[in-house]
Each structure stands twice: as C-alpha cells, then as structure tokens.
C-alpha cells in the first residue's frame, strides 16, 4: 500500500465515518478469506492443497495450520491450532503449526475494536457501531498484529470457521469419490469414514480434489458440549522445542555467510550525534563496517563484525558528542511537567456521570479526600534482547525477526532502504518475550546494516544495555483523585485526573511521523473510565502530557498505572468511610454480576476477613481490562529481611475459557510481571539519558521472592476476554494496598522499594 493511500484511509476511518459503519463487517464464512487473497496459494507444493489462509493439507496427510499471531510465550500457537483442529476433527498431535507469512489476510480485528472509546460492558448501539468501525480499520489497513490480549478472541470465530469449512470440503470430495452422500460420512483422526461400507479416505487422499469444492456460504460450528479439545488444557505444541534448547528465537537465526552485529544508539533521544570518533571501534579485530543509522526511531551506529562479541566491544568504544536533550532531562523535571499538567493542563473528560463540579461545590471539608499518585517510566526487559537478521540482495530484503507487527515491519524496514513492501519477505521467529516491546526499530536497523554489506545476511543483537536504554518505555504518569463521601460513607462523587504521555502519538512519531495523532488516546484513561462502579457523580479526565521520552505498550498499557491509582484510592475511600475494602467495591458494583462473582470468589479463596497473625496483611484490587474481570488478593508479611510477598489469589472471569492451563499460566505470569515492577523497578533520567542499563540496576522478581499462587477461572460474562495482560494491573494495586495495610501508611508512589525493602 502506498503511503498516501494509507494516510488517507487512516484519517478517514478513524473518524468513525458513517460510510465505514454502513460498510460493516462481512458475516458468514467469507469473512475469513475476504478481502484478501490467500497467501498460501503462493509456494504451495504440487501435492499440497490449501483451503483458506489457515489450512494446508498435503497428499501424504500432513496437515499444516497457520497460527498468524506471534508466539511470545502466551501459548497462542497452541490455542489457535486447537480452534482449527476442533472443527477439522484432527488431534493436535497430527498438526504442524506454522506462523505463516506476513499478510494482510491475517489482520487483527478485535485489537482495533478495542481502540474504540467505549467500556467493555457497553453493548449499546453507539458502542457496538464504534467497535465495528474500528474493526474495519484492521480490515482496511490489513494490520497483522499480536497485542492487546486479542489473539485468542480474534481467532475464535475465524479459525474455527476455517477448520469447519475445510472439513466440509474434504467430506464433499470424499462423498464424490466414494459415490455416497456426504450425510453418510463421518470424520475422525484426519480420515473420512463411510461406516456402511467400511471404506475410508484420509484427508490427504482427497485434499487436492477438496480444494476445488466450492466453500460453503454458511457454516454451523460445533456446540460447546461437543468440544473435544477446547475448554480443556492442551499440551502446548512448542514445549519440546523449548525444553531442548531448540534454535527457535530471533537470536538463533544462522545463515550461510552471515555477519554479526549490534547497535549503539544516541542515548539522547531523537537527536543526531553532533560528532563521532569511530577510530577505536573500527580498530577492534573482527569489525567489518560501522554504518550510521538515521531513522525515525533514533540516530546512532550499526556495528557489523565477524562475531557478536567483536561487535559488542566495538560499540562500546564508539565515542561521540551525543548532544543535549530537548525534553525534560531528569526525573525532577519529569515530575514537574506531570505535576503542572495535573494542576492546570487541558483535560478531556472520557467519563462524566452526574455533575461532579456541583457535587464538590457544596461539600463540607471533612467529607472530601484527595490524593496524588505517581508511577515511573518502566522498561520491558524481555528476556531475549531486541534483535533482527536481514539480508539485502538483488533489490530484495529478507528479514528474520521476532516480529509482533510483521506487516508494519515489512513496510517500514523496506522503506528505510528504499525497497517496496512487495519486495520484502519476513520470517517471524518465536520471541523470547515481548510484553509489548517488539516494535520495528530492530528490523529497520538490521535492514540498513544489511544494505551496507549487500549479499551477506547480518544478525544484529542488541546488548542488554541498549535494550534497556532504548526501550519504548511504559510512560511515567501522575493521577489526582478526589472524592466526596456521603453520610453513609459511600462516595457520592469521584473526580480523577490523569496526566501521561500519549502512547499512540509517540508511536506515530517513530513510525509514521507525517501523520498527526488521531483524537484522544484511549490508553490514557484505560481501566479508569470503564470500570463497573456506579458513583452518581463520576468524572475521569485525561491530560496528554508529552515528556519527550519514547513510550510504548507495556503489558496492560494504561491499566498498568490507572488500576493502581483507582484501586488504591478506593481503599482510601473505604478507610475514610468505615468500610471493609471489599465490601465497598461490592456496594459500588452491585449492578454488575460478573464483577461481583469474581470479587466474591477471590474473597472466599483468600479467606478475606479472617484474622491474620501479627505482622501480616492482605490487600485487594479489582480491574476490568482487556475484556476480563479480575480480582486479586496479595498477602504480605514483615520479616527481618524486609517485606515478603507470601501468597497471591486470582479470580478471573474470561467469558469462555479456551485453555485453562494456558490461562492460569498467563494470569500468574502477568501478576509476577506486575509485582516485579511494583516492588522495585524504575527508569530514571539524568541529562536526558536513562540511568539504568542492565539487571543489576533494573532487576525483576526472582524465584526466591516468588509467592505461591492460587487461580480460579470463571465463565460468567457472555463475551470472551483476554488473559495475557489482565493479571498485571491488580497485582500492582493489590500489593500496594497490602503494604499500606501492613505499614499503616499509604503507598502512593511506585516502586515501593524506594521506601521499603522486600525480602
């Protein structure tokens, strides 16, 4: 797609224009293939047949399923394959699962739907229309993306339909071959069986004919009661590779004649170095070439060498005058910008129930409470540092990378070296974690380096230091919360202002700098404006506050700080109003049965309310995010060595639980990720440069700090929720509430380790 067309469409569609809404989303089976061609047609072997972009069957009965979402540890390849397998009537072990090519046919619709500014529980006409409109953006732009905890939900209908359609076509072809009616046939283990005559044909035997059968226009999917795979824990398809150290990651790409490399980017963001001396670096044995990197992501150097170690050492020896920052240069300056914005910045109200101003105007002083909360920048530190391999040859670019956004990778990496998207091929590897970090910078840099040594592939792995300093950080943020309590202690008014950089605007700056940001950024007030609490006067305002530092999507995005603000302040309200924290929530969410059910469940699991031994305390938090309703309780204990996190209980309503084993693992993982951050992580600035660099000063929870977990999965709500990020927000807030209860002093700033040590 050309840039100008992309721009036009982006502008138009983001306005939720009537034309787009009227266009709607196609329903029925063709929804899975249209409007894009099937990318599997290309590169099909002679004895192979493809039925749609998700299923390929060979005459030898090898069945390949395309799971077009990136495997970053969330088990998505298993879940997506299970959708197809369920309807195709094939056991998982018989399938080969591939990521497949980068293609617009694999657009992510749910992710775009959730960009619409309406709460999850709002099924109203406007909300549904807006969600539909945003979904069509994915169709139009063809954005293939893994993120927002959307992959399972996005695949749920599409992949099952793909399996069912292929099965239908196989049965039709078998019926014709056997000269019987399709209704006399059944399928089992990748075989079509005719019980009456005892004859059978494998899928492979009829695959080539079946691919010519006209796909059905409508399909009936299995009833839940008939599911054999879905709803039960499956053995993950990627486990054997991962317990044997198989070379499946981006860093493991090994190609003939390959060179190795790394990058050294300007620690002062966005700027070109004023001058540089490369002589020491170039003198390192094994260095092949050092090339300037001048990109929308940043400026610096790519070091190409005969081995990674030589590249690392040379990068360290690059000397440069990196310039001075044109943004708040240290943590005090960042705090000041956020504080000023909270006090007087222009705000957009994203929820405005009742009349908040009037409610506070006549409030007696002793019925009003107010508090400021703040959080720091955070790095993602995925276990596998940023990396990419690229080969530029004969005017074509080939990329091997742990890519979360493969279509964007192709477009932008190609553009960086003047190669059109049609001449770019991407091979998506497994990724050693992402948590929202895998953007396009690593592949753009690798492409530029590859162009400098045309004909030889370059594998560029960042040092951990570069990975930490050149992250797209979870933004620093500040919240100001004010409540008026009624005579009964319940809040009659709640006014929340949050000041934080816009992630979308910042991401546009580094990906499509010529496009101006598109209206209010919904991540600013995510998990604040859309919580199932009824308070008569309830206002949530966002103040987009640019801080200059690159910011991006960090596991649970806006919920990672907003849940902390909201849920810790609710504990303050409870204390002031004389309520037990859980009882206060129960009163406020009484119209939302799904919310009540998770709160009751987690309270029961944790024996909330039972007397605790001296020096032990519990904290609670609730959040509705990424479509899942989550309640968590954290128990902490004072020990001579510091605070020990003893146990975490999680109850989550995910609507439909496709794979309980994976869901439990994801919720636990999300909670550990949140606890790591709340305990001790922060990224700080000095002279505009990040002060932290590696795990010695940006650590994460280790096994000896890890609490025990107990997880309950509920299925009350009628829509499916995501789980990859939903465990994180409540863990942060519940830990802060637990520590506040333990110490009798409110935690209003993270990380907690600034004031208190953890054991």
């Amino acid at each position, binding site marked *: 797609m050309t840039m100008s067309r992309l721009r036009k469409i982006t502008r138009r569609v983001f306005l939720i224009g009537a034309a787009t809404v009227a266009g709607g989303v196609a329903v029925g089976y063709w929804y899975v293939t249209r409007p894009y061609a099937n990318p599997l047609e290309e590169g099909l072997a002679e004895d192979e047949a493809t039925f749609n972009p998700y299923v390929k069957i060979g005459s030898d009965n090898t069945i390949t399923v395309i799971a077009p979402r990136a495997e*970053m*540890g*969330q*088990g998505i390849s298993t879940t997506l394959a299970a959708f197809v397998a369920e309807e195709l009537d094939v056991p998982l072990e018989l399938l080969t699962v591939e990521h497949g090519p980068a293609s617009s046919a694999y657009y992510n619709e749910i992710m775009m739907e959730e960009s619409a500014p309406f709460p999850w529980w709002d099924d109203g006409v406007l909300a549904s229309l807006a969600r539909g409109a945003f979904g069509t953006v994915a169709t139009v732009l063809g954005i293939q993306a893994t993120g927002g905890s959307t992959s399972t939900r996005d695949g749920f209908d599409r992949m099952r339909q793909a399996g069912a359609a292929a099965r239908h076509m196989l049965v039709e072809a078998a019926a014709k071959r056997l000269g019987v009616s399709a209704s006399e046939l059944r399928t089992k283990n990748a075989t079509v069986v005719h019980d009456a005559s005892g004859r059978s044909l494998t899928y492979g035997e009829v695959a080539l004919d079946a691919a010519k059968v006209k796909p059905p226009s409508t399909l009936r999917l299995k009833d839940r009661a008939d599911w054999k795979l879905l709803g039960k824990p499956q*053995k*993950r398809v*990627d*486990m*054997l*590779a*991962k*317990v*044997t*150290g198989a*070379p*499946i*990651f981006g*860093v*493991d790409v*090994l190609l003939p004649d390959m060179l*190795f490399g790394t990058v050294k980017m300007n620690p002062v963001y966005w700027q070109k170095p004023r001058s540089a001396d490369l002589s020491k670096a170039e003198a390192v044995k094994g260095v092949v070439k050092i090339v300037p990197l001048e990109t929308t992501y940043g400026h610096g150097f790519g070091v190409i060498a005969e*081995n*990674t*170690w030589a590249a*690392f050492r040379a990068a360290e020896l690059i000397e440069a005058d990196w310039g001075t920052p044109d943004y708040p240069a240290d943590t005090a300056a960042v705090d000041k910008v956020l504080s000023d914005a909270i006090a007087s910045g222009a705000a957009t109200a994203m929820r405005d129930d009742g009349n908040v101003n009037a409610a506070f105007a006549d409030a007696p002083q002793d019925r009003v409470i107010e508090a400021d909360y703040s959080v720091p920048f955070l790095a993602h*530190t*995925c*276990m*596998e*540092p940023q990396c990419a391999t690229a080969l530029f040859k004969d005017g074509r670019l080939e990329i091997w990378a742990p890519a979360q956004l493969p279509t964007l990778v192709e477009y932008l990496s190609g553009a960086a070296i003047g190669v059109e998207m049609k001449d770019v091929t991407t091979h998506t590897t*497994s*990724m*050693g*974690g*992402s*948590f929202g970090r895998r953007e396009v910078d690593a592949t753009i840099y690798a492409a530029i380096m590859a162009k400098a040594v045309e004909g030889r592939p370059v594998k560029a*792995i960042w*040092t*951990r230091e570069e990975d930490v300093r050149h992250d797209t950080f979870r933004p620093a943020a500040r919240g100001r919360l004010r409540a008026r309590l009624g005579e009964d202690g319940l809040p009659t008014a709640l006014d929340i202002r949050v000041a934080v950089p816009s992630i979308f605007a910042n991401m546009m700056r580094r990906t499509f700098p010529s496009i101006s940001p598109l209206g209010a950024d919904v991540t600013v007030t995510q998990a604040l404006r859309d919580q199932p609490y009824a308070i008569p006067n309830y206002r949530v305002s966002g103040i987009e506050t640019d801080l200059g530092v690159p910011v991006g999507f960090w596991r649970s995005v806006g919920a990672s700080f907003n849940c902390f603000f909201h849920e810790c302040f609710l504990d303050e309200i409870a204390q002031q109003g004389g309520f037990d924290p859980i009882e206060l929530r129960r009163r406020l969410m009484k119209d939302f049965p799904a919310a009540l059910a998770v709160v009751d469940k987690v309270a029961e699991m944790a024996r909330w309310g039972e007397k605790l031994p001296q020096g032990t305390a519990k904290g609670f938090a609730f959040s509705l995010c990424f479509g899942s309703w989550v309640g968590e309780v954290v128990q902490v204990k004072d020990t001579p060595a510091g605070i020990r996190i003893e146990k975490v209980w999680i109850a989550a309503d995910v609507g439909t639980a496709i794979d309980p*084993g994976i869901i439990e*693992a*994801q919720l*636990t*993982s*999300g*909670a*550990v*990720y949140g606890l790591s951050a709340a305990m001790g992580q922060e990224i700080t600035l000095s002279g505009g440069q990040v002060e932290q660099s*590696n*795990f*010695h000063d940006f*650590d*994460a*929870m*280790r*096994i*000896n700090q*890890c609490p*025990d*977990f107990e997880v309950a999965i509920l299925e009350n709500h009628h829509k499916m929720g995501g789980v990859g990020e939903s465990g994180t927000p409540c863990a942060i807030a519940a830990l802060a509430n637990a520590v506040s209860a333990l110490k009798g002093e409110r935690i209003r700033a993270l990380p907690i380790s600034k004031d208190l040590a953890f054991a």
Partner: protein
Amino acid sequence: MNLTINGQAIEIDADPDMPLLWALRDIVGILGPKFGCGIAACGACTVLVGGTPVRSCSLPVGLVEGAVTTIEGLVKGGVLSPVQQAWLDEQVPQCGYCQSGQIMSAHALLEEIADPTNEEIDDAMGGNMCRCGTYPRIRAAIKKAAALKLAGK
C-alpha cells in the same frame, strides 16, 4: 583451542578472551545457551563446565577447564533427561528463552542434592531470571524431576 563440548572434542579458532557463550553460539553454532545480559546477572547462558553451572557470558573461552555441557548435551540417545521430562510434564516454559539456563541450573542442583528443599531450590535457582514468571511451575518441575531421578527413570 581444544574443548570438549557435549562429549565431542572440538577445535575452536577464537580469541581466548571471547566469552564462552559467543564462542559456542557464533563459532561452534551451538545455540541452546542464550544471551540475556552479558554480566552474569540473568542465567540465560548457563552451561556446565566440569559439571559446575557457570554463566558462559562471563567466562573467557581461554579459561575453560573441563568438559562443557550445554542443553544440547542433556538428551541421551533421543531420551530427554529427567529434568527436561519434568519440564515437559509440568508445561513449564512460556516464551522459553530463559529455560535452557533454568534447566541447566536445575540439572546441576539435582546432581548435587537429590531431593532439595524449597530453600535449596531458591538458593540454586535465584540467579536464573524468568521474565515470564514461570517460577511456580519451575518449583513443581524440580520436585517432579527429583522424584523421577530417585525412581531411576
């Protein structure tokens, strides 16, 4: 330089100062040990040298004394080691990136202590970070591997 890696004698042409990790990965082509930090702070690069777990990112290849075992060397005759089998049974990995280091550390632990307590597990595994937070399943898998080993499997 001559090294024994997973039972094989291998000649390596590398600067003796090059960390063992990069000699293995970039020169020998053994990719099981991963790069996570380069400063012995995460454990992703853990291999055994003479049976002792070491962080290969911080050990110059010229100083290696003893046979090197990487995760590729744990599979014997196509059979997974007890630790790997337990990891598979408990479905431990998520992204999987840290797991070859975790498995090497757990393997060394069980060679030394057949039936470790929780504290001993914490001590032995504290140097292996997992950003996906698979720790609860790692604990369960180590207990399971200990049982498998004691049962002679």
